[in-house]
């Protein structure tokens, strides 16, 4: 992380928190493990929540990425949570962030609490935030 500037907004999903290649790996995992229910376009279905769009944002706005990571890690895919590694879950989360329009950065998204707990999901780019 760069030197902390006290006047800058908190680090968020808009701070370039995942790597492009990580999101691409996440896309492959997503297609294999998630797409049959959540859809190839992350749009969900009758009984499956969308992973992008206004209702997804309504649920996760302002929530630490660690909470979203834990929700996915402990419940998905149903009955087969052991099918994905921690690093795999982080890649899938990176793919979901990218699909929601958030920018990639230089470093991969971590798979540990210390890396994720300080990052907040925001639907919109915070005012004054710099592009990574």
């Amino acid at each position: 992380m760069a030197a902390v500037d006290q006047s800058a907004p908190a680090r968020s999903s808009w701070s370039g928190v995942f790597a492009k290649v990580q999101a691409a790996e996440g896309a492959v995992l997503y297609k294999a493990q998630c797409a049959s229910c959540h859809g190839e376009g992350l749009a969900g279905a009758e009984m499956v929540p969308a992973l992008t769009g206004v209702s997804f944002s309504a649920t996760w706005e302002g929530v630490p990425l660690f909470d979203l990571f834990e929700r996915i890690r402990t419940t998905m895919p149903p009955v087969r949570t052991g099918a994905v590694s921690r690093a795999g879950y982080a890649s899938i989360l990176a793919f979901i962030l990218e699909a929601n329009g958030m920018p990639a950065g230089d470093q991969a998204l971590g798979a540990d609490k210390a890396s994720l707990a300080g990052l907040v999901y925001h639907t919109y780019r915070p005012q004054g935030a710099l592009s990574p």
Partner: protein
Amino acid sequence: MNATVRGTLAALAALTSAAGLLDASTRNGEWRTYGGDLASTRYAPLDQITAANFDQLEIAWRVKTDLFGPQPDYLYQATPLKVGDVVYTTAGTRRAVIALAAGTGELLWAHTEQEGPRGDAAVRRGAGRGLTYWERGTDRRILYVTPGYRLIALDARTGIPIPTFGENGVVDLKQQNDQDLDPVTGEIGLNAAPIVANDVIVIGAAHLSGSVPRRIRNARGYVRGFDVVTGKRLWIFHTVPRPGEFGYETWEDGSAETNGNTGAWAQMSADESLGLVYVPVELPGGDYYGGHRPGNTLFSESLVALDVKTGARRWHYQLVHHGVWDMDIPCAPILADIVVEGRPVKALAQPTKQAWLYVLNRETGEPIWPIEERPVPQSDVPGEKTSSTQPFVTRPPAFDRQGVTIDDLIDFTPELRAEAVKLVSRYRIGPLFTPPVVSRWDGPLATLTLPDNVGGANWPGGALDPETNYAYVHSHTRVFDLGLVEAPLDRSEMRYVRGLDANPSAGTGATIIATQSPPPAVQGLPLVKPPYDRITAIDLNRGEIAWQKTHSSTPDNIRNHPALKELTLPRLGQPGRTFIGTLVTKTLVIAGDGGFHTNAAGERGALLRAYDKATGEDRGAVFMPAPQTGSPMTYMHDGKQYIVVAVSGGSYSGELLAYRLP
């Protein structure tokens, strides 16, 4: 209910409208059936919690359901029962049955079924919507359907299976179903609470959702009645008729032989004095393409009244002919003894995804007010033959918006409206029953529908105040992009499934199956104007809307939207798929928010709200840690009124919350 009590209530009914329908249990402070009573009113005449004290409600007890399954449950949809001093509910991803002390929430017993691969393959997972209570003398039972589609009968005192019911307390619902179903992979299940009427337990069926069905000839969702004492199958009703049965010819080209689904996955209602159970039926396979099922295909999207003792059809009413919009009838009809122009009528009111409340005579199936067959736009999808007319409800007015016009589009600012108009130009829009289109990148990309494929209203259904015959229905307002693409052979036997055409400049060449993205949005905001969800009160005696009110709190992602910052906006509702059940008490309508928001104290959660039942005015609220996902119920215990509601969502796993006054 014994004959004496029933007789007394019947006498009361002559004087006070619907009293005869009501289970005495809610008057006694109990809640013995999923819908409060077999009429599905979700009404209890309790009056301790009022407008004057609602804000003072505090948590009496809470039960987290994480331990009742291998994974936590983030969509907890159950409504508990309360019998005597015990609260019963389903809980957790294993759909355990738990018995709790009504005053403290202490666990008294739990029962769970380990179903192995059969449970893992369930088409309806999770805790389900609830369970069923039955008693005769000292024989007191809890019954429910497991994720693996097995009917279980338990001793209500101990949670131990009843050895004389079925096989050691279990009836395998994949058997005795007039079709071959693999015990593990047979694609059938149920997450509704079964209903017991006249000592018969009635079981419906659910399947995987049908936007991209793999097979045309899927399992069929027949309805069955079982003896609640022995578990013996008493009857079966073929929702897809067999040769020689009524309705077989409505499946043209012999298509009754080659189609499946047509299940009854919703809650049901029953009138024990008429001996009828009311069964809401879904559409056949292929939610949006009917080319493999020509004709009106009874009993798809029909409400069917069956003799509960024999399963014989007394009447049926088809709400949609040859549906291609997924207008499954999603919830129990509300039974009401109404007075129309001075004339008492035994009626029912059926909330629907398409936002009409269909009011019928429940003895005959005749509409109370005219339902007119009117011409509708016709499909141009190859192989599709839509019905030339559809039934239009003339009264009461629709409880949510139907069809899409430019006037419905977002209009917070001129810029947002202009962007929405441009976006919509790529789609086909039109009135209710505008059919789906084959998706083309250069237009039309899809038909936009309102309500969307899950409502309008959905599985929670409505509620009724039998004192005034006001029905209360929650609905959400959300557009749906309904495009069709040719189905890849490895994905589906259907000629067309839901999807969007590929962007040719993207170079992938592949169409997008199911859908490309969530409903079209403008700068991340819903395409249509708020409110995004609402509660409507409908006077069933007059067939008129009494009041309508935006329900849920505005979510943070909309409240904080950069384009809306300068605006002062009222409550807008939640823009997602909100499925909200309402509870009616002596003076209040009670329902929780359908999504999260952050309050003035910086807490993230959702409100449990109280409305004046006559006017819809806000009468109080308490802040919950997560949105309502199961429907609230109420009971009395040791002189205190409780309100219990299931909440979950986001990073908050399923929890049952019980409120009472200090």
